[in-house]
């Protein structure tokens, strides 16, 4: 799956789509493939203020717990409630129905700390 062109990426294999001051966050196709079958996602609570690159939850595969980091800082305004019953959506559609949470961006200049699709592609290798 090629990286969607309108996203920015973190070194921890998260993507972020920024629309005005709302950012949608998920994990990349490379990340979901590396993790294998995802069975549980623990997301930050709505209202929580999170810092860019902070450890804010977990994504669990059958065998392992992986820390989840946020590529952007701000206040959590929505989480993907569907993942409770269907965590596999993250595997199936990491850039679509498998989105994780939305953030009201505190500092738009934080975008400059993120990777472009082509820069991310360079690190998304085994």
């Amino acid at each position, binding site marked *: 799956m090629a990286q969607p062109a309108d996203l920015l990426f973190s070194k921890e294999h998260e993507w972020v789509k920024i629309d005005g001051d709302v950012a949608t966050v998920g994990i990349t196709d490379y990340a979901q493939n590396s993790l294998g*079958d995802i069975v549980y996602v623990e997301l930050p609570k709505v209202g929580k203020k999170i810092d860019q690159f902070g450890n804010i939850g977990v994504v669990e595969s*059958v065998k392992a717990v992986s820390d989840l980091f946020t590529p952007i800082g701000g206040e959590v305004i929505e989480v993907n409630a569907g993942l409770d019953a269907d965590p596999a959506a993250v595997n199936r559609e990491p850039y679509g129905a498998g989105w994780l949470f939305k953030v009201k961006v505190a500092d738009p200049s934080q975008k400059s700390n993120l990777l472009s699709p082509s820069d991310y592609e360079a690190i998304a290798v085994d």
Partner: protein
Amino acid sequence: MNAESPVKRTALYDEHVRLGARLIPFGGFDMPVQYGGILKEHDAVRHRAGLFDLSHMGQFILEGENVAAWAETLTINAVASMKPLQARYNIFCNPQGGAHDDTIFYRLDGRWLLVVNASNADKMWAHLNANLGDSGVKLTNLHGRNALIAIQGPKAVAMLQRHVDIDLSAVKYYFCAQGNAYGKPAILARTGYTGEDGFELFLEGADAADIWSALLRDHADEGLEACGLGARDVLRLEAGMPLYGHELTEEITPVQAGQTWALKLSKPTFVGKEALAEQLERDDFSRIVGLTMEGRAPAREGYAVFLGDRAVGEVRSGSLAPAVGNKNIATALVAKEAATVGTSLTVEIRGTRHQATVVAMPFYKRPQ
């Protein structure tokens, strides 16, 4: 991986690469954790059949007229009463009653085969040799030379039958037979670690890859899949089977692990006998229990377990269990007062306590 002990490869390594396996070092060998995905492989075993490479496990040949009597002094179960071609689960203990390893003995024609966990192959080889005494038993180490393939699942026996020259329906559970698979000599044992019917094939290393790829080729359209160690762990946990290092260790005894069905205290002497008898008598030991979690967060090895406010133990194994209503299941080593089936406990997961219930094992029983 250090320069002294490079990771070894089983006879099926090229097959794993061909099939796109994700490989990890395990027990000194590069082994497949998964191919197409753990849940997909688990599904194959529970509904059709799965193929496992177990050639990393230790295989020892024991010869001599005193094998059974000698083995009985080092293990908890009976050996001498095994019938020809019978297989039996057995545990080697240390003097404190803790487990060196859990194993399977096979009584073959004129010799015995002992299969041990891959992670304990070197330890067990040293242990057997150090305790030969004047038994006259001759030991041969086939670790890494002979191959072992398992085919497990409701369709496994029917699939295998088409390629072997003996009647597999005549081989009872926990018995084995000598035969040929695809024309190559094999010991075919009706044993397994999944809770499904199936066979384990002991093969010459040189024959293994051809038989493995032939089985996959001949039964792909019936849904036979290569399965890795990841799926194997979910399957054995659902089936309530202990995994050495988790439910049995040098500290956790067979009594604590619920394996007293394999304990024969009537044997005159064996390593650990006094300790295990005393442990049973005092009956105040912490013990392995099964847990089902109420929520979606999996319990994992090492998580603390509570009865009310009191810490009573820790999780030893845990996983999502697709064959147990897609619940999260676990084993835990807990204090006696927390161990009664039906007891409500909590498991601490990242600082939050999650509801769990003590349940009887196995969690899953195959439809009869």
